[in-house]
Each structure stands twice: as structure tokens, then as C-alpha cells.
């Protein structure tokens, strides 16, 4: 799988390259600033880009903006954004670009190698990988008068994992239940939230997230 990396810290950049190359990824280019990122992405068209939010020259949200711009130039370009912080605002901006194939994770998640690689592969495959922190913030919002308040605790748990971008199989694995039970919960959730169910993993995440963030 072909990857482009954008990370300004040399140590972290080398770490990411080593980690990805050790797991049979091909690192096409590793850039260390924002302006070089968009041309690199447009030129290489990688299977997935791993991008740090904060990049030179502004050291603000250069990486995020470059990712959004690259996705506008190459629709559906899979981008996994890594950040020292997760902000719902940024998650929402990435998702409103449309087309899925986005991820937004805390940098710490890289240390759990298996989970991280799973997220990279999911994004490369056109899926979604949202940080559990973003999801738990969304779910923690006051749900007094909202349909989401009618979910059982188990259904909320399933919704959380679903919103991170996991498949039914992965949710079943995480919660130690059968896949059948998960799909039953999923159907209940869709019924309660008034969302038409869909076979497409990514579209259902988009639906859930846009429902959650539209409030």
C-alpha cells in the first residue's frame, strides 16, 4: 500500500516511516511542511496520506487545510489526519468534505500499533476512522430532548463504535457479542434515530456523525 506522510517532527516522521514500512507499506514521500503537501498528494495520488494537523510555516492547522484542499483537487483521496489534540470542529470540517475515506486520530493512538494500522487500512479502503475522544464528546452532549436519549446504554456503546468507523464484525469483537446481536442493535439504533439503514459502512457513519453534529 502506497503512503505519503506529512509530519514536521523528524523523530515522529522517522518513527511513522519505520512503523509503516515494517508493515509492508510503501512510503512514497515524507514532507515536513504544509505547502509541499498538496503537490505531493496530487502528484503521487497515494492509497492513503497520513497528515499532521500542525505544520510549518504557520504551525496552526496548516495540515488540516492542506488535506481538505487536496481532497478537493483529488476527490475521495483517503487522508488520515493525526493531531496532538482532537477538536470536533476539525472532525466536522474533514467530514463535510464528503466522500468518506477520512480519519482523524490523536497521535497517541499510533502507539497502539495494531489499532493504528487497522485505522490506516480502513481509511485507505474508503472507510472512516474517528478518534474515540471525538465520539465520546459527541455522545456526551445533553441528550434530554433528543431521540438519541432513547437509546439503551448498550445501543449507545454500539453507536459510539460505529461512529468511529468500525464494521459490525469489529464491533462484535470489541463488545464480545455475536455479529447478529450487533446488527440487531444497529437496526434498533437506526429505527430510533429515524435513519434508513444502509449496507455501506461509510455512509452509515456519515449519517450518524452528521446527525450528531447537526445539533
Amino acid at each position, binding site marked *: 500500500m502506497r503512503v505519503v506522510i506529512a509530519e514536521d517532527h523528524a523523530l515522529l516522521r522517522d518513527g511513522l516511516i519505520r512503523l509503516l514500512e515494517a508493515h509492508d507499506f510503501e512510503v512514497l514521500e515524507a514532507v515536513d511542511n504544509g505547502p509541499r503537501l498538496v503537490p505531493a498528494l496530487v502528484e503521487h495520488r497515494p492509497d492513503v496520506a497520513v497528515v499532521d494537523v500542525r505544520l510549518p510555516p504557520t504551525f496552526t492547522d496548516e495540515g488540516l487545510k492542506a488535506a481538505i484542499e487536496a481532497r478537493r483537487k483529488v476527490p475521495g483521496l483517503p487522508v488520515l489526519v493525526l493531531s*496532538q489534540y482532537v477538536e470536533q*470542529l476539525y472532525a466536522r470540517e474533514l467530514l463535510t468534505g464528503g466522500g468518506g475515506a477520512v480519519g482523524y486520530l490523536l497521535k497517541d493512538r499510533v502507539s497502539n500499533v495494531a489499532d493504528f494500522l487497522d485505522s490506516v487500512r480502513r481509511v485507505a479502503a474508503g472507510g472512516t476512522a474517528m478518534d474515540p475522544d471525538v465520539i465520546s464528546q459527541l455522545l456526551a452532549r445533553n441528550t434530554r430532548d433528543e431521540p438519541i436519549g432513547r437509546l439503551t446504554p448498550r445501543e449507545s456503546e454500539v453507536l459510539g463504535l460505529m461512529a468511529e468507523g468500525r464494521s459490525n464484525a469489529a464491533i462484535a469483537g470489541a463488545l464480545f457479542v455475536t455479529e447478529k446481536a450487533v446488527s440487531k442493535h444497529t437496526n434498533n439504533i437506526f429505527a430510533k434515530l429515524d435513519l434508513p439503514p444502509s449496507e455501506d459502512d461509510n455512509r452509515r457513519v456519515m449519517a450518524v456523525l452528521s446527525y450528531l453534529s447537526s445539533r
Partner: protein
Amino acid sequence: MTITQQAPREPMAFPRAAQPFIALGLAVLAEVGIAFFVLNVVAVPLIAVWVGIPLLLVFVPCTRWFANCHRTLYAGITGTVIPRPYKKPPMPGLLMWLRTTLTDPATWRDIAWLLVNAVVGFVLNLLSAVLFLGSVFYLIYPFLVWVTPDGVFTQPLGGLFTVNVATSFVMIPVGLLVFLIWLGSGERLLKAAAYVGKSLLGPTENAQLAIRVRELSDSRAETVDTQAAELRRIERDLHDGAQARLAALSMSLGMAEEMVARDPAKAAALLTEARESAGTALSELRDLVRGIHPPVLADRGLDGAVRALALSLPFKVDVTIDLPGRPPAPVESAAYFAIAEALANALKHAAATTAWVQISHEQERLHLLVGDDGVGGATVRPGGGLYGIERRLAAFDGTLTVASPTGGPTTVIMELPCESSSLKITPSSGTA
């Protein structure tokens, strides 16, 4: 929701009917002031023979009290506050007090005011009172002629002509005319007298600057204290949190390194522990950094940071922001933390279900309004959250006003001076 701010007016705090009596009272006080003037004028030269010192110790506070009473009265009449311009002695002690007092221009301006007021103030106030009382007198003239024995009130206007009960009604138009004159000029005369007083009782430009310096050094001292406390907090958080965790992490790694050949399973467990420890350290550092300066504030300015804050709160927050650019970083940061604290209060204490934030820039000031539909009853208490915001804003000459009746809703109004010229035009928030 829109809050329209009223333009400042200069109201007279007294009802119209009370004016003539206030004027009369002020006229009498103006002459009482002569006594204070004489006492002071006598006491000052007597300092040379020491007798003046105890006299001044009594007279000066009396004069100041008398002048302060007038400051309050004049403030009511002119509608603007007259600050007390007296210097504070830099050190305690009787002689120091005496020295400060005698070299304080405010002392001499008080004495000058006593004299000026006895002449100008007296005339203006008396005129205002006499116009009213005279008009009343002539309006009831026929009644006076009727109830008094013959000959007492038969010669109005200083004996120009003689009247009886029937003919005395000619005086009513005169009374009416005088009343109209009072209606038109009474308040102005009173205000004129008050302005004369204000010009002498108010602080001179120098005194104003001195007062300002005092305010600024107070707020600077507080700012420095707050900063130092904040640095101590950060130091403690780092020492007890991230530093300790990284030390433990380094120990776990060392042990794992030493164990990897002998007992790979145990080494792997230690490595897992180390990774978890690193994760916790990172999340602690993240919280700490957010408390110092939220990254999204650095990225997106007040606009984005407040919107991000609103998204992260567990209730609905309506955000309206109308800013032509980004305020200077310190102002931006103070404004952000003030809003965050006000919203945190709404969350913690008010049991609010919705809140709203409005940010605008008008007349060289940044206006921040935070409201919620909670239970209300919020007050500014020393040590409380709102007090903290007030101190934080005071460092920038900002103000905080809380309107929070019991039962709600609560509105926190904050203002920060922020010149238009210092607003940086936000770099395009688009993706270009």
C-alpha cells in the same frame, strides 16, 4: 437575541419638585462653608506656632467631609461621578499625613471652592430657589391678602402699588411668568452651580493621572500575582503529572530491556505498561496545554475557539460573532478564558439547557455577552469564578457586569478595550 446598549445620559437624580429646596439648602450650605473657609485660613498660618497643627487635624477632615457631601450632591445633580482627588500619605504617621495634606493641591482647591461657592454658588442657588418661591408667593397672593390682617400684603413688588382681595388677582400673571422663568432656568442654574463646584472639587489632570497610576499599579500587582500563581500551578502539574509518569515509563523500559532475553513474556507486559503510561502522560500534557492556551485558539482565533468550545459543551450554545479581525493575542486569550469560565459556570451551577454567546466590536471595545436559561442567582464573590474573570479582565481595563435574578436567566456582560487598529485581519479561513 440582541442587546441594545443605551447611550449614556446625564440625568438629574432628584425629582423636579425637590430642586428649589435643594437649591435653597445648597445656598445655606454655601454660607456655612464660609465658616470652614475661615477656620482653615486661620489655622494654616498658625502652623508656624504649632497651634495650627491640631487645628488643621480637625478642620481638614471636616472640610473634606463637607466637600465630599457636596461631591455626592453635585454628582446627583450633574449625573456624573466626581472622584475624590485626595492623595494618600505614602507612610503612616501624623507628620507624614500633615505633609501630604498640605502639599495636596486638592486641599487648596477645596478651600478655594469654599470661597467661590460662598459667592457664585450662593447667588446661583439662591436665584434658583427664589424664582420658585417667589412664583409660588405671587400665585397665592390673593389668598394671602385675604387671610392676613389689612395692610400686611397690600403692597406687592416692593410697594409699587396697593391692592385689595379683589384687585390682588393681577399678581397671578406675574406669579405665572416667574414660574415659567423658573421652569426654564431653575435646573440650569442649579447645574451651573454644580459645574462650578465640580470644576474645583474634581481632580485636576495631574490628580487624575495619579489616580490612574494607582489603579494601574493595583491591577498590575494583581496580574503579576495571578501569573505567578498560574506558573506555580503549571510547575506542580508538570512535576506531579507528566514528569512522574515519564520517569516511571523510563524505568519500565529499562526493566524490559534488561528482561527481554531472560523472560520475553514479562518484558512484553512491561512494554505494554510503559505504553499505557506514555499515553496517560500525553493526555495529561494535553489537558495542561489546553489550560495554558488552547491550540484551537492559536489556530483559529476567538471565532473558531469559541465555536469549538460550544461544540464540546453538553448543551446547546448559540454563537454569534461579529469581529472585523483578530484581537491582539493577550486580549484574545483573556476574552476566550472569560467566555469559557462563564459557560462553565452555566454548566456547573445554573442547570442551563441552552446558552448563547455574542461577541462584537464597537466603539473601540470588545463586547462579550454570555447568557443562559438557568436558575440565575449568580454573584461576583471573592474567590468565585466570576471574580476570577473580573480580575483577569481588569488587567486589560475590562469590566464585568452580571445580571442574574433568582430564577434566571443569567447574562454576563464583559467589555475589553480593543482598538480597531490593533485588530488583525484574519487570514482567509478557507482552504486556499
